[in-house]
């Protein structure tokens, strides 16, 4: 289960709409308890550095990750997941998402239809890397 405050989710939706027709991406920063429950407190947007086709791909390199991680660490928090948008595509992970996924992280996907933010879903890579399992999303 992942808990994301409404305000944080609205920020992500606004970012997705602004980036349209390109994909947006960023880090979900918060805390995790031993039972696999995560609580997001903040986001750290990444610049989409994919060299071409940012309309259907996102990429953020190790520097962006290190920056987000040290930023989180200074606040006593962790990177607990990654969010990105799917312009004019459903909020479901793609095969490409799965191939490039890290375990444990929550992958929050926002569908942006014609420039307007639509569905949001969250997913976690299965331990065999063969699929994503849906994750319950709670917006207090």
């Amino acid at each position, binding site marked *: 289960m992942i808990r994301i405050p409404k305000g944080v989710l609205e920020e992500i939706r606004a970012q997705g709409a602004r980036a349209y027709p390109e*994909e947006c*991406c960023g*880090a979900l920063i918060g805390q*995790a308890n*031993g039972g696999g429950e995560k609580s997001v407190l903040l986001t750290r947007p*990444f610049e989409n550095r*994919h*060299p*071409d*086709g940012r309309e*259907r*791909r*996102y*990429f*953020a*390199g*190790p520097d*962006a*990750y*290190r920056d987000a*991680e040290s930023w989180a660490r200074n606040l006593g928090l*962790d*990177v*607990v997941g*990654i969010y*990105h948008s*799917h*312009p004019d*595509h459903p909020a479901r*992970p*793609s*095969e*490409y*998402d799965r191939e*490039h*996924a*890290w*375990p*444990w*992280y929550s*992958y929050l996907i926002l569908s942006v239809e014609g420039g307007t933010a639509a569905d949001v879903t969250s997913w976690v890579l299965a*331990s*065999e*890397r063969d699929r994503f399992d849906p994750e319950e999303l709670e917006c207090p």
Partner: protein
Amino acid sequence: MPVKILIPTPLRSFVGGAREVEVEAHTVGEALQTLIRRHAQLKKHLYGEDGKLRSFVNVYVNDEDVRYLSQADTPLGERDVVSIVPSVAGGVDSAAPKAAAPALPSPASALPLSAEEIRRYSRHLIMPEVGMKGQVKLKSASVLLIGAGGLGSPLSLYLAAAGVGRIGIVDFDVVDESNLQRQIIHGTSDVGRPKLESARARLREVNPLVQIETHETRLTSENAIELFHGYDIVADGTDNFPTRYLVNDACVLTRKPNVYGSIFRFEGQASVFATREGPCYRCLYPEPPPAGLVPSCAEGGVLGVLPGIVGSIQACEVIKLILGEGTPLVGRLLLFDALAMSFRTLKLRKDPNCPVCGPKAAIRTLIDYEAFCGIEPEVAQGSGEFELSPAELKGKLDRGEDLVLLDVREPQEWEISRIANARLIPLGRLPYALGELSTADEIVAFCRSGVRSRKALQLLRESGFRKVHNLSGGINAWAETVDPSVPRY
């Protein structure tokens, strides 16, 4: 040596929640191998099935990405810290298949087949992939061939035989005896005749029902666009870089698929550059090789049957494009090695920074391709400062002048023809053999036609030799004007 490995949050559950793990290792590779031996679950997340680190896994030693150090062999010292740092990537599934066939403009009017055509093309008509519909597509299609040489021979013969309605050929050369070893559209009695005349006669014999259009001109930046506009597909059978880049750029600008083939000695390449769907020649080779680095077939030779194979592959790709059947070589480079008798294909990607087909393309009109390829305007024979004509050389030899004749050809060419008292130092060996020559000597360099010896001259001059000349037109010119007993080749 004990070293620390920092574990990023997504992988901590595999190491009991630890932020760091200590291992004994001397290199980065050893450290990671020890880590995955100890925590086997990590392996599939860090390494792909090919045994390589996954593309989104970055490894740092202190603050340096090991990609910029010695990768897995990067040595580790005391107090070095290894970090596993994620990249994040993803996106939507692409709806478009990767190698889509380029869409050809549909012909204004589909031309029906005559009874004669039905008899002629019956082996096509009974195949479901061709059939009446496909044969009508072939009849309604037009293809422009650049060159009526080695590749153009099988290309034009098969396209005409297959019933491609309109075939244009661009060439301005005449048939030479040395062409006959591979340019099978021309025959012995055609020697000295314009290639287009000879090709037209042969193609008419193969299939009088198709239209042959000949363009007896050199393809240039001035005429290419207009010529290409008149055809559906362009097939490149050229043998030089300036024309290859010209054909590529003109195809991109006119949005025509470019069915490419090239040959050298025992090796050939083929691809389909259709840039709405895939990469172009410049995505593969953004820059031409330095002028003179890659020898032409005239300089380096070519197995006669090789253009037969590569040109036939091009003909096959042209026909597939017209029919809209199968998977074209879009986004793939086919490599053929006749000695190994092997075919390989390499995946090609569209270069997002391609200056001609990329989204920010800077090239919007055709340029000077000779200059782009670093080729200086041809110096008229004998007019250059260091050029020596065969007659001038003969005069010097007859007067008994003390000359060193330097033959920079290859040993197998020396077997064919030679000039008396010349010393053979092949061009490739020359930089290492300068000590065998004296700057005090007057040197006349020569090769087959005067191109390689001009490079030799440049090297000699840069190395301090001053009394150097180039035999204009090479040993072939010598054979033609001075010594007819020397065979030309």
